[in-house]
């Protein structure tokens, strides 16, 4: 286990940081520790949030205090749960990789040192994990692609990445949550909405969810975009 740090984050929060740089191991630890803290049902805890490499335990200063929460955290860190911390849900999400839907696929594949066909095959054959959600509500950071996908963000921002775009950088994929500028490269397009504020359940993903992408023709994606009875043709299976 890597060395963790326990820091304050606000007068009502303690942050446990498992690493200062993102690694698969640190993210696994953060996701597992979040589940462990929630499961422990500590008195006065108001929120347990995870990010790429850390977990923030928020508390109500009227019901508990930093010293007590920190002691509980230290105790929990010393006896990590043996339970399976694997994904609870598996998503399958259709993606179109045709030129109109993937304007930077060729460029990204070249940077990764593979052909476009290989790139699509690698992206659709791997089970990704939601390592964190953020920057926009519901927007998932999916990791980790093989090391040759450790490609930098481009320095010139794409002014308006479309909602549902599949973008890549630094061994991660993002499904874009809103039309927004980004330095990540546009390598595919889904008809999937990760965030629907008016829906009964606005957020599609939870941290730790598993995600697989399946390639569809451009025409099929356009058909999916026009359908109102499905969220981009995605399926979600609960894993035992």
């Amino acid at each position, binding site marked *: 286990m890597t060395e963790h740090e326990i820091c304050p984050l606000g007068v*009502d929060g303690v942050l446990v940081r498992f690493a200062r740089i993102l690694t698969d191991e640190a993210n696994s630890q953060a996701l597992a520790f979040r589940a462990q803290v929630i499961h422990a049902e500590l008195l006065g805890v*108001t929120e347990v949030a995870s990010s790429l490499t850390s977990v923030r335990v928020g508390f109500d200063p009227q019901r508990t205090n930093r010293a007590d929460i920190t002691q509980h955290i230290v105790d929990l860190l010393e006896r990590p749960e043996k339970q399976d911390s694997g994904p609870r849900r598996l998503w399958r999400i259709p993606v179109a990789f045709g030129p109109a839907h993937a304007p930077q696929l060729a460029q990204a594949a070249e940077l990764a040192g593979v052909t476009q066909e290989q790139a699509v095959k690698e992206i659709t054959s791997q089970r990704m994990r939601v390592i964190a959600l953020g920057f926009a*509500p519901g927007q998932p950071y999916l990791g980790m692609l093989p090391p040759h996908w450790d490609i930098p963000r481009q320095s010139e921002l794409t002014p308006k990445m479309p909602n549902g775009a599949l973008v890549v950088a630094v061994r991660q994929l993002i499904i874009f949550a809103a039309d927004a500028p980004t330095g990540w490269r546009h390598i595919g397009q889904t008809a999937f909405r990760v965030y629907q504020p008016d829906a009964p359940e606005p957020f599609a993903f939870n941290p730790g969810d598993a995600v697989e992408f399946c390639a569809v023709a451009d025409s099929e994606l356009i058909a999916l975009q026009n359908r109102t009875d499905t969220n981009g043709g995605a399926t979600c299976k609960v894993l035992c």
Partner: protein
Amino acid sequence: MQGTVLMPTLTIHSIGPGVTVQDLGRPGWTVQGLSTGGAADRLAILEAAALLGTPPQAGLEMMGFGGVYSTDTDTRIVLTGAHMQATIGDSPAPHNTTILLRAGQRLNIGGAKHGTFGYLSFAGGIQTDLVLESRSTHLTAGIGAVLQTGTTLPLGTDSDTTSAPKRLTTDDRTTGGTIRVMPGPQTAFFSDDTKASFAQTTFVRSPRGNRQGVRLDHDGAGFSLDGALNITSDLIVPGDIQMTGEGVPYVLLSECQTIGGYPRIGTVLPADLPKLAQAAPGTKLRFAFISLADADATAVSDTTLLANLRKDCQPMIRDPHDIVDLLSYQLISGVTAGNDP
């Protein structure tokens, strides 16, 4: 809406460019990437609740400029937060004081004289639909929208329009000054020299600011990390002071992101964040690092804060000490009118 009972309605006759419905926000969705949001100056929502004798409710947050409003039912209202020029007909509408707004009367709220975010609250609260258990507009998350002229909003009924008026005296939080900062997870990433220099700098609140955060301007070098240290994005809380690539500080407010990649030198205490939010462009601000123990000693729940504010509310009965021209009153003959204000 059920039966024949119609909800009171608020009508917006004209409005400033930055007016939204705000309550205390929607906590609990950080892990999904949705920040709590809610009023930029949360204290103003609690002050309104204390004065009106209600739980914290949704009101109008008016950034810089108010508007003209009326209701179709008598209701008590209160203006908190930034001091805005406000009148009902020809009469001034005082700040931090319960006021009875009669059906059809026009409440005219102008520009902020002191501060940035003014709040207009109604005894029955604004009763727009809940989204994730809150009525707060969260612009960056696409929840709600900036209000427009001609819009009407549902209000709750004021069950106590005849209750005695109250007022609340608060410390002025619109003039900047020294803001207390507690250490955060990345404070140690900054050199001692950078931290010392930050604490010795007088900043000016930039015109660039909104519900997400406020930029601070200063003369001299920026406050960057040493070298080209690239840090992994991590969780953010409102009050965090982040340094952009050029080392320019931004203090994050209620509608900030949940995760950010810019280094953060520390966190403004929640107790001092209203001062930061209310500092108008040009206001001078300084920062003082305090210890974790001192910071934690200021932690207080909304429940306690509200209970204390309720105790501070005073009935609007004139105390002889407040009457500067006491001697001019004809106290002996007792002929002053009984309905003096």
